[in-house]
Structure formats: C-alpha cells, structure tokens
C-alpha cells in the first residue's frame, strides 16, 4: 500500500465543523430559509426534516391580520421572479398561538421576522414576541413601507436608525436588521443599522422591478411593481454583502439567488456568516439540504476544519 498523504487525511477524516455564531446564538450550520419562502409543515417535513437546518424563520408577521395583495402576485422573469405578495398575515395573536410553538419544537434556533407599519407597531410586536420566550433572534423586515411616509423603513438612514434603535432599546433579544438593496449605498445602511444596535444583518431583500404582460398589455403584477429574487440578483447581492462586510463587525446573513452550495459559498467568502435560501425552495425543495451537504464537502476538499475559516476570505487585503 502506498503511503497516504497524512496532512490531507487528517483534515478530511473529521467532518468539518459547520456551526456559526450569529449574535451569540449558535447555528448548527450556516443554512436557513429566507423569510417568506419556506413553510414548516407536513409536506416539507416529508422532503427533509427542518430540524436539520441552521435556523428556522417565519414569513414576516405584522401585528394585525392582513389579506395580502390581489393577484397576479408572482411573475417569472429570466433567472428569477417578481413577487408582490403583500405579506398576508394572520397577525401576532394567531402566529404566537399556532405557528411559533411549532417552530420552537423543531430544534434549530428560531428567528422571528416581524414588520410594523408604525413605530408603535414595531415596538408592540417585538415586545410580544420576546414575551413568549420562544424566539432566539428577532429579524426586522425593514423593506415594508412606513405608513406615514409611504416608503420602506430602510430607505433613509434616519428612519432606519430610528426603528432599529427603538426596537433594540425595548427588547433583550438580539435584533437582525434585514436591509433593502433599493438604496444609494447599502454599506451606509449596514453601518447605520450597526450603529443603531443591530446585532446582525440580513442582506438582501428583493430589488424593485416590474414586468408587462404583453397579451393583456398591462403590468403583469396586480400591485404593478414587485420584488425581484432568484439567481438574477445574485451578483448584486454578493456585492452588497461584500461591501457591508468591509464596514461592519456584526455578522451578516447573506441571501439573493442561492440555488445550491456553490452560490452559498460565494456569500460566505464575501463575508456572510450564514446564508438563506428563498426562491430556489420553490424550484427544488431539497436546495437547503443540498447546500448544507455541499458546504461540508467543499470544506473537507479544501482542507478546512470549520466553516468559520472561510467567512470573508475573499476580501483582498
């Protein structure tokens, strides 16, 4: 028998450590669903168990029930899709009673995604979620419009700072600010969120766009505009994460067009500590499982013992 290359063997014989730390919460691996793009139920449990995920998250909830937008709500585009779902929500009460306990029972850390239409709503919702004791992290979906100004909370630094610091001052739960990329410079927004007390960032939400139905000669979506997601936006999202990583110290959850391990690894190398899969769950319900396994294989093949070793590695120093 030939001599083995022991340096390689040593590294591949132990499975690489996939765990990451997001704002003091240990994720067993760095892969989670993006809010609004994955349901925890019997159907999905039959594909693979959500208990294998790095974290679980709900579709953004509002304080009060809302119906969502009139159809058509989605429209396919090259390498992506537009959505204008309008975040239908059962409201906090039903969520806390029916959905949150089911998320809690799964095992992985629970991220609760919330949004408010007014400052008072943000605070009340954050406090009510914290009071359940069932959430590990709070994610603020700052892309939804602020009722009084009609533009998303994350569009202006001042508004972003106001809402993040208000929530942070009221709850002990670590707060993730989920940023909209529809801004002049997202690195500025990342810095603002960090300064306001966010313990982590989710980047990015969808890009605003539209499509026209040429048969009907009308906007394709009932809401006229929608959010673009999928591989079409991946280079934009990778850049957003890379540029934010240059200026903040808090961990980043990267997302935008992740369809498997290679795309996820791009985000990790760009500076994300964890990644989220959105649209691709619709196309291949095993995407998150494939991604977890593929990251493990990549680390082993490249000789890393922990995923933490590759976070931000692409930054040219």
């Amino acid at each position, binding site marked *: 028998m030939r001599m083995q290359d022991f340096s390689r063997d040593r590294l591949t014989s132990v499975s690489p450590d996939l765990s990451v730390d997001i704002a003091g919460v240990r994720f067993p691996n760095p892969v989670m669903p993006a809010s*609004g*793009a*994955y*349901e925890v*139920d*019997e*159907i*999905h449990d*039959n*594909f693979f168990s959500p208990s294998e995920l790095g974290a679980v998250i709900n*579709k953004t909830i509002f304080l009060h029930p809302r*119906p*969502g*937008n*009139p*159809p*058509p*709500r*989605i*429209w*396919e585009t*090259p*390498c*992506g*899709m537009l*959505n204008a*779902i309008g975040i*239908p929500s059962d409201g906090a009460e039903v969520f806390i009673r029916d959905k949150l306990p089911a998320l809690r029972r799964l095992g992985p850390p629970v991220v609760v995604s919330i949004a408010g239409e007014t400052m008072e709503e943000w605070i009340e919702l954050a406090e009510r979620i914290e009071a359940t004791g069932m959430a590990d992290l709070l994610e603020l979906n700052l892309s939804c419009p602020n009722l009084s100004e009609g533009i998303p909370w994350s569009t202006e630094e001042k508004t972003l700072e106001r809402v993040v610091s208000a929530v942070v001052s009221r709850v002990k739960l670590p707060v993730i600010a989920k940023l909209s990329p529809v801004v002049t410079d997202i690195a500025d927004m990342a810095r603002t969120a960090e300064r306001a007390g966010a313990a982590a960032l989710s980047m990015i939400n969808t890009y605003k766009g539209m499509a026209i139905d040429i048969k009907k000669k009308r906007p394709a979506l009932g809401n006229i505009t929608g959010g673009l997601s*999928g*591989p*079409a936006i991946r280079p934009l999202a990778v850049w957003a994460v890379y540029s934010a990583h240059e200026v903040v110290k808090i961990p980043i959850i990267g997302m935008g067009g992740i369809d498997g391990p290679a795309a996820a690894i791009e985000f990790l190398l760009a500076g994300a500590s964890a990644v989220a899969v959105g*649209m691709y*769950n*619709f*196309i*291949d*319900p*095993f995407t998150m499982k494939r991604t977890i396994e593929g990251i493990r294989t990549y680390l082993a093949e490249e000789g890393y013992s922990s995923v933490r070793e590759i976070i931000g590695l692409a930054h040219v120093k």
Partner: protein
Amino acid sequence: MAVPVYRKATLVSRKESPRGYVHLVIREEQIARTAGPGQFVMVRGWHTGDPILPRPFDIVLADPLKGVFRLCIKVEGKGTRLLSTLKKGSSLYVTGPLGKSITEFDSAGTALLVRGAGAAAVVFLAETLSKLKKPVYTVLSASTKSRLVCRALLEEFSNDVFIATDDGTEGYHGNGTDILDQLIREGKVDTVYTCGSHRFARHVKALDLAGKVKGYLFLEGNMGCGMGDCHGCAVKKDGQDGYFLVCMDGPVFRSRSVVVEP
C-alpha cells in the same frame, strides 16, 4: 392525505393529440400510487434559468400498477413548449401529488363541463366516479371539432359525452352551458365540476348560488411552488375577506366560496 414527493422521473411516452396538446406519460411510482382525482404535479424539464420555475399540470390518470401517470399539456409559452419537445426517456423533475384530492362522491349524477386543456383536469374524476358506478355526463366544448381534448378518455369513463363546438363542426352548435342546463332540467345531475372557461365558471357559480346544483371549479393561478411556500396562487374568497391558496386549499373549490374573475 398523500404526502408529496420531489423526484427525478422518466418520460415514458409522448403523443400529440389534438394539435397543440401533448400527452406525457411519466414514470414515478409513488406519485402514481398515491395521486387522487383533482390533484396536480409541478413539473420542470429544464435546468435553465429561463424558464426557471416548475409548471403546474393536472394528473389526467394514474396507474398504480404500472407506476406511471399521465399529463395532457396545452402548448402555451416557453415552459410548455419545452415540455412538448422532450424525447421519450428524458428526465423531468416532478413534485406531487399536490393539492387536495376530491373525496366526496355522494352525488346522484355528476356533470363535467369542460373546454380546452380544462378537459385534462376532470378525466381522473370521471374514472373514479365510473369505478364507483356513479353516473357521469360530460359536456366537452371547443372552438371547433379538431380542438376537442381528451375526448376518447372522457368517452370511456362517462355515461354520455355531449360535444359542443362554437362553429358547429360537431355536436351542438353553441354554448356548452345550454347542454348542462338541459341535463339539470332532466334531473340527471345535481353536481357540476367545470374547468377551462371563465364563462363556464360564472355559469356554474350562478347555478350553485341559485341552489340548482352543487358547483365546483378547478382553478388555475400563477404558481411558484405548488406547496404553500410562495403565496403566489391566491384567489379571492367570496363572502369573506382574504384569499385562498389554489395549491393548498384547492385546486378544486366550491364555486360559491370564491370570486370568479370576469
């Protein structure tokens, strides 16, 4: 409820009939074994980014013994065009069976009022009812004789198939709803399922609201996932606020419970 699977499946055969419609027979044993009438599958026959999303199609028939099921696809846009050109032996990705299966078969007589690709949706139901020895009357409508879809299958499972064509090239020259109304007057049917025409849907809903029949609609809607993730397939509830999801709450709905688009 049968729990859906996501699988790589094989195309066993492909046949065009009539022109512009392809019948695909797909081998996937679990779907073939567990599918019920009213259910659908999400199908992807590409790795490209354009098209990228899978497409929904009703399960026309499932053969649990052979482990195959059949789809009938109208060639519409780029996804269906790609599916229509797949060669025998090709691989496809399928998720299913999805949606709620029809489980109530207590009607004394059922009418199936269908047009175009809508005919594909009711074949499985017709087969199930015929196995239960329940009377089935099908009204098959098309613009013209050469565009009648799933005719042979519907003839096999129905007590009677009434043809209606817009141009009178075969059967009744006029509206399929006239034949339905006649069947109701004769006391032959107390339950109607319809698919493939907004006009039919409105008519059936009106009959349902008038208490003349129990009306059911097979609904379509732009679907991203087919399994409750994207909330894309919303249809407005009638009489209450909010929306149903076609993929989870349907695709078959009691006609009085949903708003029918004009």
